[in-house]
């Protein structure tokens, strides 16, 4: 097997590492702005596949297939995002004789559409959030309101093809239905080229928990201990952990049973994740299935010791699924993941692309840094702003949080801003530390503190910042490590002045 990784950033790096550990030759693909990206250097071979906009490179099926053909790759790992859940791409791989590392295109179609997946769940006896089927565009306003009344308020309008919170609207009462549907349809149409929406009851106080599964495609499915992903900003996950403080052994067993029932029903192959809402009474409802590797898979790897990417590759090779089910369902210790986005949290989380002047990722015991960037790299404007994921493990949740705070504290990155100050702020909140949160927690506390800087300084830190700012004006701070041996900064300032004259 020779694997082409049809992705970029940290997930391409993650997959390329798995290839190298397994002795599997690897091929990276890259767009114009990713020529010097980390994943390019970690692959055995690398192929340029086009211009920077994703549509002209990472989303371009023909170019990815051509790169596989040119390098003699025999398999494709799609990572997440881009072409990972594109059944057309999976079929194109099949036509080319390439093994797609993931489930079949039919399963992707069955489980990928939100309403189709709900139907499959209902058939498999898995509880779903009360909701409607896809709502035809031809429904009258009155009919829409009638369907909404049946579900009850508050409810969510969701796009069938949705993701990342787009095409999604919260509706508090009947009066908001018609305008909400119009807005959601328009947003979904613009974002996904598909404007169909449906209604789903809003489960108040719910957490987002999800079950990782591995399937061999022949009816064997191994469920894993749950991940808790309720810390979200605008429906985007920010912090994930495993296990969930809200999941008892009985709930865990029931979640696993539901995940197996649904995955087995579709003869699921490879790694997949079933997302559930868990209400304050411990009832859970299936939401959707992600038919691919998940961003937050490291927390599962840290508490079970099972390498999910290596298993995806083994399953694709046709090896038997010999994961120990007891180990998969038992968390040893606690793991937590923070997504490091290139954003400015003090400017409303504005995306912050740019050149990284200095980078020192966290390290040490119990710390895993899945980074997709390095010093000198220009974080591009064209793709998702996540530049790395920091994961920590400790025997208990408090220890994992303490280790995460320490790791983020020592994470040094210059030239761009990141959401790290906001992550540190969340980790310090009592409600987070107590585990007393639901999916609305983060948006709520962010709204309550709007405008305040996340980089709240102690008196000592303020003094240090004043000193550093003044020195930066006095001295020319070199963008990279280049202080001459024995030179004092004041001499360097003098020398620079000489150059300027």
């Amino acid at each position, binding site marked *: 097997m020779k694997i082409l990784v049809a992705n970029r950033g940290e997930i391409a790096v993650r997959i390329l590492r798995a290839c190298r550990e397994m002795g599997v030759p690897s091929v990276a693909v890259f767009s114009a702005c990713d020529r010097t990206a980390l994943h390019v250097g970690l692959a055995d071979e690398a192929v340029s596949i086009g211009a920077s906009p994703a549509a002209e490179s990472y989303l371009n099926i023909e170019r990815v297939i051509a790169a596989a053909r040119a390098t003699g790759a025999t398999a494709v790992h799609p990572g997440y995002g881009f072409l990972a859940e594109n059944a057309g791409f999976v079929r194109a791989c099949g036509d080319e004789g390439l093994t797609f590392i993931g489930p079949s295109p039919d399963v992707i179609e069955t489980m990928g559409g939100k309403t189709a997946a709900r139907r499959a769940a209902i058939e498999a006896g898995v509880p779903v959030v009360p909701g409607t089927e896809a709502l035809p565009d031809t429904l009258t306003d009155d009919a829409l309101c009638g369907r909404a009344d049946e579900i009850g308020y508050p409810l969510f309008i969701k796009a069938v093809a949705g993701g990342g919170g787009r095409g999604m609207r919260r509706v508090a009462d009947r009066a908001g239905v018609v305008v909400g549907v119009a807005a959601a349809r328009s947003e979904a149409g613009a974002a996904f080229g598909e404007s169909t929406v449906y209604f789903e009851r809003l489960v108040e106080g719910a957490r987002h928990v999800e079950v990782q599964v591995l399937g061999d495609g022949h009816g064997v499915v191994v469920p894993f201990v749950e991940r808790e992903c309720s810390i979200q900003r605008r429906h985007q996950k920010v912090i994930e952990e495993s296990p969930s403080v809200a999941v008892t052994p009985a709930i865990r067993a029931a979640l696993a049973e539901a995940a197996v029932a649904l995955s087995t029903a579709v003869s699921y192959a490879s790694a997949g994740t079933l997302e559930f809402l868990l209400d304050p009474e411990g009832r859970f409802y299936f939401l959707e299935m992600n038919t691919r590797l998940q961003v937050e898979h490291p927390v599962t790897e840290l508490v079970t010791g099972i390498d999910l990417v290596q298993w995806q590759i083994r399953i694709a090779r046709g090896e038997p699924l010999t994961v120990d089910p007891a180990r998969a369902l038992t968390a040893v210790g606690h793991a937590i993941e923070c997504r490091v986005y290139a954003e400015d*949290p003090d400017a409303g989380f504005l995306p912050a692309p740019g050149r990284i002047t200095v980078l020192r990722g966290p390290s040490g015991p119990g710390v895993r840094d899945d980074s997709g960037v390095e010093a000198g790299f220009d974080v591009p404007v064209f793709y998702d702003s996540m530049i790395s994921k920091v994961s920590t493990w400790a025997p208990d949740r408090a220890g994992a949080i303490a280790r995460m705070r320490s790791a983020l504290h020592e994470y040094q*990155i210059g030239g761009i801003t990141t959401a790290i100050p906001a992550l540190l702020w969340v980790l310090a909140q009592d409600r987070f530390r107590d585990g007393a949160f639901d999916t609305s927690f983060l948006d709520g506390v962010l709204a309550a503190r709007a405008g305040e800087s996340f980089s709240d300084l102690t008196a000592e830190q303020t003094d240090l910042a004043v000193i*550093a700012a*003044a020195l930066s*004006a006095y001295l020319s*701070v070199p*963008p990279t490590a280049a202080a001459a041996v024995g030179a004092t900064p*004041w001499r360097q*300032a003098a020398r620079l002045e000489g150059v300027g004259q």
Partner: protein
Amino acid sequence: MTSTPTPPGRTLRLHVEIAGSVRQVTVEPVSVDSSQARVSWDETSYVVDAVPRAGGFSLTMPGGSWASREVTCHTVAPGEVMLGLDGLQIRARVGDGRRAQPAGAAGAEGDHVVAAPMPGRVVRVSVEPGDVVTRGQGLAAVEAMKMENELASPVDGVVSEVRVSVDDTVEAGAVMVVVSAAVSPQVDHD
């Protein structure tokens, strides 16, 4: 950086604004043969040992406080540096101490330019020249890193110029829309 380098040993006066408060700061190298300087403002005075390193400084305080820190430092705009310290990010304004230049209090009168906050693609233009807009109203949107960012009018006023169209690629700081402020009863004098 923001000011002309100064001969070794020469004292420099700067104003530094952090989190809304401005300090008049004096920097005075202890000697050109050491990496130490005295940095003082108000009643505060530190002797710091400052060694430049990748993207910033290593600071220790041999003069008593003993605090040690790595600070990253990059210029984001003339007179504006972004500092990294203990996982925090601090925007600081630094200027020549002789020219008073309190920041933040931009006048509410006259033309206000609405610039792209980061490089990206224009995905929406909601106004035309001559449109009357209110403070906070969306004027245009830029997409970067898969996120749409709505740009709002900083003032009540009238759109005097629209310099971009949908699908244009813009650099950070590119002027997108200009709004002429309505006459305001309150004017801040510099």
